[in-house]
């Protein structure tokens, strides 16, 4: 017997005496993340309805294969068309690994999925089901220390998606000076992603957290205090930016498939 | 019974608060072996409750400050009843003690130049209190706790064993003497109830205060006057036990938090006191001696917060004893709240945001414990027993207890330093200055004296005393006797005292003492609070007896001692210390002349000021040398 049932500890038979609904939070987390993963997987393999001039789905930007329409490929199509066993690989798969990696190694998401999926622990003061535990000291979890590389990659994506939002100030004929609901959707999505990145713990560390003497770096200190304020809301940004990406894709898909038309303000 | 647990050390320190830890560090750094004994876990001592700061004339904020100014403030605060030499040493050495803490890792708030910041406090002429937000005491304890850990790490590295050890959750029941000299201490582990003997030539008492003798107190359960009682029983004297500081603002509602401190900073930040009629009553209570320094109308008092040079201070900032008496009078006159307090309000003067920033722990305390949001509503406050100025009579330079070789006392348990009233901020610096001096005293003593072994008969007697409550059945309940004692002290030996009530109190305390000899305890020895209380109660009874007897003796009102039947200060009484001693049956009080101030210290004051406190003969003499 280990943990709270160890011989020296107070003899209490149950694994927790909590009377609140401690299981609710992890349950919601599982439900939301699983829904997102299912939706993202379906969409990644669907390989269509991701582009409707001038809007592109964040799942597919930058579109790097020649499966994409050329005017939708921001960085060209360096990969051409790649097919395995005769199946054309979806352009989304080339890029999803980066935002996915950023979120997988994110200090907040780690908490969320360690608790909800791995039950380690399921909630505070609720005994976990595992016999042994080594934390993030061994492979593969030691790779969580690479969070900063995904953070930097994520920044590149934020830039690209911001450009997509700017490009959305055009009409379907490619003329500038127009704005539609789609523009707002892409702008909101890009903003939320910036907030998510800017509030990230690695960002906070890089911008100033690693300094020993703030007083000798007044500008970085100032930035650090701003990032610290955002950092407080990192979990919120993590969730709403995730919904943002999914809803943006839903919108682009609806326009692209012709279910709705993209309403222009001017 | 199993073999008695025995330890041998050069120095035993009883109490792990600020003074005890500072003494222990000094003794260990001089190469002695040291035991630190405390009733709680290591790092929980009552020192952590100190909020405001530690007074030291570093002059970081106002360069006009120096030890002489600090000395003057301390003597005025104590109404010149202080032992001049203690006040002098304290004022001179405090800055070094603060700097030393910084070398050990303390992180005080800083000035713009990067020095230790200092804040204003009642009675201090200049900003003088080194502080960390409103948790300075915690910083002191943690720093010294970590210093001791560092000494232990060093011991392990150098010697492979510890030469300084902490014995936490251990109660000392007796100081053992052989041939008239200290030979060690005897006690029991609270956890197991098993007994322990420490043999040591020097014992330092640093046990803090006596607040738990009273019903309403800011002190934790540990403040049961153990050191006062141990010293008395060992043959030492207590000086001026009538002087207790009642902090004017303790919480009064709900009952469970009654007495918990509401820091003076609340008033410093602009809190005003009103009675149930909404009247700002403090204007009625400004004593003549303070008329020129305190505003007599609301408009001027309000202006003070904006311009402190052109206006007089609001009367809420009068010394603690004045404010406590005023609140007491209002409540007794039926103008208090239903819970027996008055209102203290900061919400009208400063914004919610600033309240939360400047008084974070107060906001937290009221919100979590009383359900009161002090940014919107007033607090209910009333006086609470906070600090005992009286204590073990010591030699200032060495903190050696007068009359017992090998015994030392420092911190709140020692008397003399603060006279009849302590200034806020002076207790933390007192701990450091005299904690170190007690360490030095013990070092010198240990080097000059042989250790004595404790005789078997002493051990047997001490052991029997611990066993006694278990051998009785159906006797008195320690919890109810404690409650009775608190009721008596609260009603009869409280803020305002008169002869008849004090005489009644002395009789009643004697009666409880008789009955307490018949306390019986249920359950076993293992972590048994009822058993622990039986010993604490014995100490409290002795302290209460001493306080009541001193209070009836001093026929004047001064500082923390107010007599309804003798309302004024009497300059003849300024020359008198009241010394308590114990004859094995009862506490005896005698009068003793206060050491007179030497010329160089006398000359630090304006003679007209001294005339308020001293007799014409003393003034004519102009200091003792």
């Amino acid at each position, binding site marked *: 017997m280990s943990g709270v049932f160890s011989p020296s500890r107070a003899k209490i038979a149950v694994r927790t005496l909590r009377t609140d609904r401690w299981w609710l939070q992890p349950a919601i987390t599982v439900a939301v993340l699983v829904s997102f993963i299912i939706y993202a997987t379906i969409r990644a393999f669907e390989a269509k309805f991701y582009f409707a001039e001038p809007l592109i789905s964040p799942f597919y930007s930058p579109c790097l294969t020649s499966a994409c329409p050329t005017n939708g490929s921001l960085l060209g199509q360096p990969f051409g068309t790649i097919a395995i066993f005769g199946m054309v690989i979806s352009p989304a798969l080339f890029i999803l690994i980066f935002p996915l990696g950023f979120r997988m190694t994110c*200090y907040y998401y780690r908490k969320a999925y360690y608790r909800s999926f791995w039950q380690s622990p399921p909630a505070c*003061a609720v005994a976990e089901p595992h016999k042994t*535990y080594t934390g993030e000291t061994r492979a593969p979890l030691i790779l969580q220390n690479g969070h900063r590389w995904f953070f930097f990659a994520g920044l590149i994506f934020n830039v690209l998606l911001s450009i997509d939002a700017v490009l959305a100030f055009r009409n379907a004929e490619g003329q500038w000076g127009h704005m539609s609901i789609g523009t707002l959707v892409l702008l909101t999505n890009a903003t939320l992603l910036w907030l998510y990145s800017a509030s990230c713990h690695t960002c906070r560390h890089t911008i100033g957290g690693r300094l020993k003497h703030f007083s000798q770096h007044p500008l970085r*200190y100032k930035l650090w205090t701003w990032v610290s304020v955002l950092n407080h809301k990192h979990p919120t940004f993590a969730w709403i930016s995730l919904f943002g990406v999914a809803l943006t894709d839903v919108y682009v898909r609806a326009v692209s498939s012709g279910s709705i038309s993209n309403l222009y303000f001017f | 019974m199993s073999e008695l647990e025995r330890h041998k050390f050069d120095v035993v320190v009883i109490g792990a608060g600020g003074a005890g830890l500072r003494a222990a560090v000094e003794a260990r750094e001089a190469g002695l072996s040291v035991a630190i004994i405390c009733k709680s876990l290591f790092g929980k001592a009552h020192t952590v409750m100190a909020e405001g700061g530690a007074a030291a004339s570093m002059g970081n904020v106002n360069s006009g400050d120096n030890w002489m100014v600090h000395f003057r403030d301390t003597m005025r605060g104590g109404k010149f009843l202080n032992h001049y030499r203690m006040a002098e040493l304290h004022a001179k050495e405090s800055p070094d003690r603060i700097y030393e803490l910084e*070398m050990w890792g303390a992180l005080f708030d800083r000035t713009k130049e990067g020095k230790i910041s200092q804040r204003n406090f009642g009675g201090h002429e200049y900003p003088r209190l080194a502080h960390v937000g409103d948790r300075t005491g915690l910083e002191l304890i943690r720093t010294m706790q*970590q210093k001791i*850990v560092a000494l232990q790490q060093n011991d392990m590295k150098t010697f492979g064993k510890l030469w300084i050890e902490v014995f936490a959750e251990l109660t000392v029941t007796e100081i053992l003497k052989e041939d008239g000299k200290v030979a060690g201490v005897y006690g029991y582990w609270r956890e197991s109830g098993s007994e322990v003997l420490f043999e040591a030539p020097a014992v330092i008492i640093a046990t803090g205060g006596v607040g738990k003798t009273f019903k309403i107190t800011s002190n934790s359960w540990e403040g049961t006057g153990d050191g006062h009682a141990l010293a008395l029983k060992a043959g030492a004297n207590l000086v001026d036990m009538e002087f207790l500081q009642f902090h004017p603002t303790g919480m009064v509602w709900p009952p469970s938090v009654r007495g918990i401190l509401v820091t003076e900073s609340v008033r410093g930040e602009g809190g005003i006191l009103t009675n149930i009629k909404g009247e700002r009553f403090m204007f009625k209570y400004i004593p003549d001696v303070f008329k020129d320094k305190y505003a007599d109308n609301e408009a001027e008092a309000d202006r003070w917060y904006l311009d402190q040079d052109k206006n007089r201070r609001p009367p809420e900032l009068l010394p603690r004893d004045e404010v406590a008496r005023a609140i007491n009078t209002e409540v007794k006159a039926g103008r208090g709240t239903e819970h027996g307090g008055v209102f203290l309000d900061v919400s009208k003067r400063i914004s919610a945001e600033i309240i939360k920033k400047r008084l974070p722990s107060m906001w937290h305390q009221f919100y979590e414990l009383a359900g009161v949001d002090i940014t919107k509503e007033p607090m209910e406050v009333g006086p609470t027993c906070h600090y005992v100025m009286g204590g073990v009579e010591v030699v200032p330079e060495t903190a050696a207890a007068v009359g017992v070789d090998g015994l030392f006392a420092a911190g709140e348990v020692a008397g003399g330093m603060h006279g009849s009233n302590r200034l806020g901020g002076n207790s933390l610096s007192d701990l450091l200055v005299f904690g170190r001096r007690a360490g030095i005293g013990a070092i010198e003593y240990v080097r000059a004296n042989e250790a004595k072994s404790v005789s078997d008969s002493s051990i047997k007697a001490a052991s029997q005393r611990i066993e006694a409550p278990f051998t009785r059945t159906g006797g008195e309940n320690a919890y109810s006797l404690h409650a009775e004692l608190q009721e008596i002290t609260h009603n009869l030996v409280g803020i305002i005292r008169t002869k008849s009530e004090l005489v009644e109190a002395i009789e009643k305390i004697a009666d409880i003492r008789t009955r307490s000899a018949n306390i019986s305890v249920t359950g076993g020895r293992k972590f048994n609070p009822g058993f622990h209380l039986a010993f604490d109660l014995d100490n409290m009874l002795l302290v209460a007896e001493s306080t009541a007897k001193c209070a009836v003796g001093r026929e004047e009102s001064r500082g923390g001692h107010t007599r309804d039947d003798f309302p004024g200060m009497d300059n003849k009484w300024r020359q008198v210390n009241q010394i308590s001693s114990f004859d094995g049956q009862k506490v005896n009080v005698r009068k003793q002349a206060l050491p007179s101030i030497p010329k160089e210290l006398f000359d630090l004051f304006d003679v007209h000021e001294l005339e308020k406190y001293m007799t014409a003969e003393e003034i004519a003499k102009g200091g003792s040398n």
Partner: protein
Amino acid sequence: MARKLNMRIWRGDSVDGALQDVQVEANEGEVVLDVIHRVQATQMGDLAVRWNCKAGKCGSCSMEINGKPRLACMTQVASYGEEETITVTPLRAFPVIKDLVTDVSFNYKKAMEIPAYAPPSDLKPGEARMQQVDVERSQEFRKCIECFLCQDTCHVIRDHEENKKSFAGPRFFIRIAELDMHPLDTLRNRKQTAQEEHGLGMCNITKCCTEVCPEHIRITDNAIIPMKERVVDVKYDPVRWLGSKIRKREGIV
């Protein structure tokens, strides 16, 4: 307005024990420690409970109330429903001594393992100069009252006794962070030893320590994660590692 309160109090020792039902009076505004004291004074004279200041400042009365690690002196009875039974047990991550009192010596042993503050050897008392912005981070961690609730709730040791030898726990991660961020501390290897000796890598940042902290210290966000990032700087980031070799930056920042 007194009312009858139903409580279940764990009573026992290291050998055996069980929850015992008691009924006790509770008055308006009382905290759980008050009612425990009433039980002690009226029904169970030898009920063991550790407490001290009763104002949330010393961190002695740590226990588990309805399964949650809390300070009994800061837990209002009124925060539970009128009909709700309040269950109190000792901390479940540490060996029990008696009733509500546990043996927390683990924490004092761990404190001994953290190297002390190391000021510059030529620094003289009174000459230290530090800016407020440089001490504020460490000051947050020095608010710690050592109630050890974070240690109690941390699943790394709560659920895995065997990890106790290699894991210092949240309380001592904030101590390490405090010293590593201290503007005058000169010890350079705190990041490495945090990972290699004190088990920082065992933490999977599930934030229970932060949730239970009565001082509201943001243990995870402000101490543990910044320390993890600092560890990456010196152990897992080849770019910074190379940079430090070339420019010998470690120590300058």
